[in-house]
């Protein structure tokens, strides 16, 4: 077994623990690159620009010095966790359950064997060369699930990440392939109701959207258990004429770290990205979007809204890259931020790298408290301060929620937003 050796004693010991149940399905070159990345970079510290303000190493040392990870390789197909959506896939360290078998949908999960046509896609978008946790997931993965959608599916598909009681760490990898011309609506959420202690969940999602396919992807993250730390690296690769509407709701959690990468590989692609982050207590919510315009004549739109309460920290980094041959690109990014008190912190950083000369790119960012005049106006009509604040916050994010097309998905998400 290949194990990285770094100069960090803690990291070496830590990796020794997590590597015990490694599954070998990652292409060799990708595996080597991942190990090299970990070796060279180690655990991101506060000097690392991408993890500034996120004390990863102290979180690992405090909560995860000892890894509880011990699974049999049997495939378990029963679970107490359920979805209200009839069509769903439940992903957990010990089982994968698919319900509501649907024509046009196929799901397969390790330890069952996975066809090489899928395996060779793993790591294609190079996340393992950009982020420690993506590299970690790639090098020491526990489980891989492949979902392929080859015909239109009308009803929403619910992908549910389930955490396991008695463990404190797991890594899952999800590969989704949407075939040419297919349209699908996906809801992705996480269930941590079974977890009674601290948990580190490191998951990677790779989505390939073929020509003329249309995907609505809604990822909702809300932890109900304290000290559940989730790190998510995802990439979406889009081909000619494809469209993606991606929603990211990150509502409460000790740590939500999302690195979302969107690759625009061809022309006439429409990529619409929206998100709402709400930090409470001492939550750290970190949203990183990277939109890569590798090809011209495509459109990307980003609107992210962030609310920080209590002593929380909410971070938004929005990176847009326009390659030199991606002419006539139209890219837009905006983040709007509301701080509800003096102890909360928001960092919002737009970052644009444009190498083509005939493009339309714009970005904006605003930061502030709730409008005092608006609050007073509502109170002067008899409305309680807390209710007035709630009305204004709902107004702040309503456009994001209202733009969700699927009613069932909207109804699932809306009650989870508590302010």
């Amino acid at each position: 077994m290949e194990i990285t050796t770094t100069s960090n004693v803690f990291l070496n010991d830590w990796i020794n623990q997590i590597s015990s149940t490694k599954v070998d399905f990652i292409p060799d070159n990708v595996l080597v690159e991942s190990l090299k990345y970990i070796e060279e970079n180690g655990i991101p510290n506060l000097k690392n620009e991408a993890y500034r303000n996120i004390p990863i190493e102290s979180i690992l040392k405090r909560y995860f010095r000892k890894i509880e990870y011990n699974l049999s390789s049997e495939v378990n197909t029963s679970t107490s966790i359920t979805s209200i959506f009839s069509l769903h896939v439940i992903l957990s360290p010990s089982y994968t359950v698919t319900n509501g078998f649907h024509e046009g949908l196929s799901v397969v999960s390790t330890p069952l064997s996975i066809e090489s046509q899928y395996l060779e896609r793993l790591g294609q978008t190079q996340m393992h060369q950009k982020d420690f946790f993506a590299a970690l997931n790639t090098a020491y993965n526990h489980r891989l699930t492949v979902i392929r959608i080859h015909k239109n599916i009308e009803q929403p598909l619910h992908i549910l990440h389930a955490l396991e009681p008695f463990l404190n760490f797991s890594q899952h990898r999800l590969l989704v392939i949407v075939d040419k011309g297919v349209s699908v609506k996906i809801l992705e959420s996480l269930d941590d109701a079974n977890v009674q202690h601290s948990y580190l969940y490191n998951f990677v999602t790779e989505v390939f959207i073929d020509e003329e396919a249309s995907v609505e992807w809604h990822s909702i993250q809300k932890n109900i258990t304290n000290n559940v730390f989730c790190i998510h690296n995802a990439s979406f690769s889009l081909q000619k004429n494809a469209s993606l509407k991606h929603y990211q709701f990150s509502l409460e959690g000790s740590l939500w770290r999302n690195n979302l990468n969107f690759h625009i590989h061809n022309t006439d692609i429409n990529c619409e990205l929206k998100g709402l982050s709400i930090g409470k207590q001492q939550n750290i919510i970190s949203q990183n979007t990277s939109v890569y315009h590798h090809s011209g004549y495509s459109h990307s739109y980003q609107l992210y809204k962030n609310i920080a309460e209590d002593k929380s920290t909410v971070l938004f980094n929005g990176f847009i890259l326009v390659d030199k041959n991606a002419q006539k690109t139209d890219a837009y990014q905006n983040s709007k931020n509301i701080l509800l008190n003096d102890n909360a912190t928001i960092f919002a950083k737009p970052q644009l790298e444009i190498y083509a000369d005939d493009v339309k790119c714009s970005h904006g960012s605003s930061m502030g408290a709730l409008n005092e005049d608006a609050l007073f106006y509502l109170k002067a009509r008899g409305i309680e301060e807390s209710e007035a604040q709630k009305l204004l916050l709902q107004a702040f994010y309503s456009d994001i929620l209202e733009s969700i097309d699927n009613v069932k998905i909207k109804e699932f998400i809306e009650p989870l937003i508590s302010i």
Partner: protein
Amino acid sequence: MPSLLSIKNLHVSVDGNEILKGIDLEIKKGEIHAIMGPNGSGKSTLSYVLAGKEGYEVTKGEIIFNGKNLLDLKPEERAREGIFLSFQYPVEILGVNTIQFLRTALNTIRQHKGLEPIESSEFLKLVREKQKALDLPANLINRSLNDGFSGGEKKKNEIFQLSILNPLLAILDETDSGLDIDALKIVANGVNQFHNEENAVLIITHYQRLLDYIVPDFVHILYKGKIIKSGDKSLALELEKSGYETFKV
């Protein structure tokens, strides 16, 4: 008849500057009062102090409203007790629906009075009736609060809210500013319909114009933070002719 509003020796400072320098005012149920004064005399300060806006420090004096010490109450509690301020500059609040907001406000006030929440059908009937009376297009009040409203529509919307919430004291802070003559008549008519023997109106204005349509029982002249003269409606006409200069002390 006991006072609905009793202001005694009210001194108010904003950022350490004294704006109101000893105001006395008694308003009884059934009365209409007008306060007139030049720019910077403290008219809007008085309306904000009554509604409870932050940043206005009462350094001396008291305000008793309907038997309660108003200064002990938060803005939302004052509104529930029956104070209504028609804003000089109503704010636009994107994403807050006018009708839903108004229903929340009305039910909060009803709850305070020990009443059940209003039935949907009854509320819609009330809305339709008042909206027609004020010539407010239906699509306007189904939008976000004041979003894209013209100046006149915003003022009509204030009086629309007044007529639905039906408070004890309506404070109209320069409700006439920015209104054309037709809108002025409609707004005045709305206020007159609201007014009865059980409530009172306090009009704050620069001009006599609105008082042609809403006839005050008393007119007070506010100058440099003090009421320097009170009289009946003829005082407003006198003021219109001679200007504030004549009344300087």
